[in-house]
């Protein structure tokens, strides 16, 4: 009933844990058996280890949060050697989230991941938390085009591009990625945002900007998924503020084949599990035989 086949793989349900909110799945696996998930996206990985940002990394907002982690991760080699073997023991689809600061870095990282046992690569062209004078590849379609083209050249595995809601034109961005060979798109990443400490009279974050996630972004993320789904023919992973099965079903009806759940894991550690059960009950109650019947019905 919940099964979905995409990219030659079978997801047992449409619920996937979002990048950066689920680590490499060990921690949540101590709370419940995460093999029940449709899939798991790893923390954003880069070619080399990164320490991430210093100072405050989290600030709570109404119905959401800002984060400025800055892609802290142990590097792709370490991941393949020490984290992936554990993840592969889980009976679920493993998606590697690939970050980077330059096209060369992306390409070298992609080559390594393509040779590894991950099932799918999610190319993150949209992290707002890394500066280093580098370009944000997720804003202008013609810049994104270059990265996707080069990465596609070296990746044989299914390649999904994760889009930033800060893209100048999200529909054009999605179309561009698909033109360059993306097998799917996932959207959205966090929104570039900020907070100010009025007593210290300075921004809360050292980097000034941080990424907004959580229920606050849901209606905008939903609108973007809907618009993109009308414009591309590849599967979509819908992301943004999904906290219960109703939110998930909205994204699916708007055109997402899979949904990713991020911040909601912090609100309720069982969020993904509860959403899976909720979708199943909904389908039963509504007399719907398969989740595939409601994908993109709007």
């Amino acid at each position: 009933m919940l099964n979905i086949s995409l990219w030659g793989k079978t997801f047992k349900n449409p619920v996937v844990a979002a990048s950066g909110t689920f680590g490499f799945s060990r921690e949540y696996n101590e709370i419940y058996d995460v093999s029940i998930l449709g899939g798991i996206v790893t923390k954003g990985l880069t070619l080399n280890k990164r320490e991430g940002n210093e100072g405050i990394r989290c600030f709570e907002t109404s119905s959401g949060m800002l984060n400025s982690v800055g892609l802290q991760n142990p590097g792709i080699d370490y991941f393949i050697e020490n984290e992936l073997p554990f993840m592969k023991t889980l009976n679920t689809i493993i998606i590697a989230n690939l970050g980077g600061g330059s096209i060369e870095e992306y390409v070298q990282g992609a080559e390594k991941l393509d040779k590894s046992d991950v099932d799918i690569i999610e190319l993150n062209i949209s992290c707002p938390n890394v500066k280093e004078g580098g370009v944000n590849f997720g804003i202008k379609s013609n810049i994104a085009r270059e990265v996707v083209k080069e990465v596609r050249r070296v990746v044989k595995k299914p390649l999904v591009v994760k889009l930033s809601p800060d893209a100048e034109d999200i529909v054009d961005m999605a179309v561009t990625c698909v033109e360059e060979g993306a097998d799917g798109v996932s959207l959205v990443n966090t929104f570039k945002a900020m907070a100010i400490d009025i007593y210290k009279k300075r921004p809360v974050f050292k980097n000034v900007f941080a990424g907004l996630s959580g229920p606050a972004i849901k209606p905008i993320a939903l609108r973007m998924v809907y618009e993109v789904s009308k414009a591309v023919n590849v599967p979509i992973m819908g992301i943004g503020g999904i906290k219960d099965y109703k939110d998930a079903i909205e994204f699916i009806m708007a055109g997402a084949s899979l949904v990713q759940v991020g911040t909601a894991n912090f609100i309720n550690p069982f969020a993904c599990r509860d959403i899976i059960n909720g979708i199943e009950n909904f389908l039963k109650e509504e007399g719907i035989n398969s989740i595939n019947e409601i994908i993109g019905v709007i």
Partner: protein
Amino acid sequence: MQYSSLKVLENREVAKNIFKLKLEGKYNVKPGQFFMLRSWEDEPTLSRPFSIYDKGENYISFLYEVKGKGTEKLAKLKCQDTVKVLGPLGNGMDISRIKGKVALVGGGIGIAPLFYFAKKIEAHVDIYFGFRDEVYGIENLKCKNLYISTESGKVGYKGYITDIFNPFDYNLVITCGPLAMMKKVKDVCKKTATPLYLLMESKMACGIGACLVCTCKTKDGMKRVCKDGPVFKGEEVVFDA
């Protein structure tokens, strides 16, 4: 680690804005470990971390200060209400390894986790607790010597607890409280080369080590307060200037 709904056995104001919350549940907890608590639905978005303050056969208890949205909601809890509890979390400390003379240095609500250390440590324990004005949370406190300071002079020494604390006599110091106090304790312990453990604090989201928002800077890079801590070796932590 488990995620459960626990029943409130007691939620009492023990001093102005300081509450003791007792929840029904059986847990194995090490001193320094904490739990993520949530007694609300949507707002605030994130659950809140609180250290284990005390524990009995059938309960765990917390000592908390009302600071903002989350603790205001906790303060409204009544007997029989339920709280969602994730834990125990964090490294905590292996008490069996602690020997000799130990000093616990706490400031304000930072005394909460130290109460449970005092209860568990079998060795000689001296306590140095500093408060702003009112003294709280020290009923049934187990120790050899108790030193209290208040900034107002209401009880004990008038001033900061670090004014009267000298690490020279001790084999080990454990501290928790405002950053300025912990920095001071770190400085004096460095002078006497006394081993020190710090209980660090940070804004948390997942509380279990998955999201990397709660990191603190250490000599070996950024570490997660919720998973690699909250107990860190004194020499490990790098305080920003």
